[in-house]
């Protein structure tokens, strides 16, 4: 009989790899009985991996994740979402007011208010890297919740933000904000999210971890074929994803959001170590995590192909 495991997920398209693998039975084929645990935010999910309540999950690298790795609780074992040239990725936004005041490109945000959820979040990282590249200063405003940021940018209380395309595009479409740049211009191979698990699983449950990654990779392949490469039926894939994302909207209103949210998921869960190292160094330079933490404490490179090294 199959081994029962728990997989943590947020109801975002970026988690589609797991959804597809589950729906199409790839996990079952790999000998796993997967049960999803859904979260409202990434941070409790990371803690749940650390506490052993959840076995595997996909999330952005954050200061919290690094801290948990530092405490010996978790390991990054693979890559998931990444920026890729030619695929619509995360966007820099300017509020209507800022745009009208002359903010047409990211570099015009000099001295302006840039929204982040928290210090050490991926938003903070993207803004900070962009500012460094442009040689400008940003004022980071922590607003905790995506909803609060949307409210703030719509009412012109913050000037800039960076966010995934399926949120960026409808916002721009409604005329409340303007897209002024792509994150990939500044962070070309940005490893946005990674697959991670508890240190215990990574070290002592090799078989199970490999099975998970195998199933997950198959899901990713199907997703990419349907949504990016156009070699499989997109409608069927949208139907599948709609079971998990935007469930309370009718199919026809959910579909554009799902399609807009399409981004590259690393094939074979390959992990871009250079990007991860860059993120870690940034956290350390910002004093958000302990300066002594090494990349070895954060990742276990023994499971997947390592790229960008």
């Amino acid at each position: 009989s199959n081994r029962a495991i728990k997989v943590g997920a947020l109801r975002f398209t970026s988690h589609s790899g797991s959804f597809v693998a589950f729906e199409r039975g790839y996990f079952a084929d790999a000998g796993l009985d997967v049960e999803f645990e859904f979260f409202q935010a990434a941070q409790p999910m990371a803690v749940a991996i650390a506490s052993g309540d959840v076995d595997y999950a996909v999330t952005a690298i954050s200061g919290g994740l690094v801290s948990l790795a530092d405490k010996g609780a978790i390991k990054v074992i693979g890559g998931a979402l990444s920026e890729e040239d030619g695929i619509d990725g995360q966007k820099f936004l300017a509020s209507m007011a800022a745009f009208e005041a002359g903010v047409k490109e990211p570099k015009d945000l000099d001295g302006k208010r840039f929204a982040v959820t928290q210090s050490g979040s991926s938003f903070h990282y993207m803004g900070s890297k962009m500012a460094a590249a442009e040689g400008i200063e940003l004022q980071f405003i922590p607003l905790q919740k995506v909803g609060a940021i949307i409210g703030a940018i719509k009412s012109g209380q913050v000037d800039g933000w960076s966010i995934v395309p399926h949120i960026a595009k409808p916002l721009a479409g409604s005329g409340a904000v303007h897209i002024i740049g792509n994150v990939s211009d500044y962070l070309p191979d940005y490893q946005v999210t990674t697959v991670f698990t508890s240190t215990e699983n990574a070290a002592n449950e090799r078989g199970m971890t490999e099975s998970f990654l195998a199933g997950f990779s198959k899901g990713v392949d199907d997703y990419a074929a349907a949504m990016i490469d156009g070699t499989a039926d997109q409608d069927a894939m949208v139907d599948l994803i709609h079971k998990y994302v935007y469930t309370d909207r009718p199919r026809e209103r959910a579909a554009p959001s799902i399609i807009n949210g399409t981004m590259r998921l690393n094939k074979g869960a390959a992990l871009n170590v250079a990007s991860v190292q860059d993120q870690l160094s940034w956290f350390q330079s910002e004093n958000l995590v302990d300066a002594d933490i090494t990349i070895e404490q954060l990742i276990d490179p023994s499971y997947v192909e390592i790229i960008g090294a």
Partner: protein
Amino acid sequence: MSDSTLPYGSAQLEVRFRGGGFSPIPHRWMGALVFVVLIIFIEWGTRAGFISALTLPRPSDVLATFGELWDSGLLFRHLGPSLSRLVVGAALGASLGIGVGILIGLFSYIRAGLGPLVAAIFPIPKIALLPLFVIWFGIGEGSKYALIAFGTFTPTVVATYGAVDNVDRSLIRMGQSFGLSWLSIVRKIVLPGAMPGILSGLRISLAIAIILLVAAEMLGAQYGIGAYILEAGSLYDLERLFAGVVILSLLGVLTSGAIAMIERRMLDWRV
């Protein structure tokens, strides 16, 4: 009027009334009226446009969202888990709180030891501890129960030991003077005497439990009114946000009504 009034002539006047007031007269319809006026005003404002769509949702849209929730059956899928969390968490927190409160009320040493601890725990924001709750109690229902229980615990303790302190000491002396055992005095005099105070403390504790539902459902909840509100908030979907808030509000009014009913039944001996 009798003849004897005549000698006073015009200097005869009725005593001026100067009492009354300072005691509330119920006007049941007023409460409803205020709600209706408020809702109509917002509806009008959002339609006329001087209340922007960002500021407040249109009440009719909230109602429609509510209708959808009802029709799709999602209402009960959200309400079910939330209610069970509320009931289990609040029951845990309240019963523990009443227990500890009574111990604090009865024993000097426990009071001296736990009183300051409770006072120090009270102002700790539960949401600050969310990450720890995951470690301590997992991501299942356990952490949700624990969070709500924790939030209801402290106010219940404070209310309960206040209530025990307020039990008429002359009744306790009476019990002692008839040689009642310590346990009889606690069971038959202290507990019933503290009941009014405990129940009115529960009013506040249960309101807090409802408030904490949202925080609790930040922790890996798929369904639940709190989760629904959080999701609506993160999408800045005001109609759904308000639909959820209205449900919590109704829940609050209902619990408070339930306590009023219990009070009427259990405390009918009050003057």
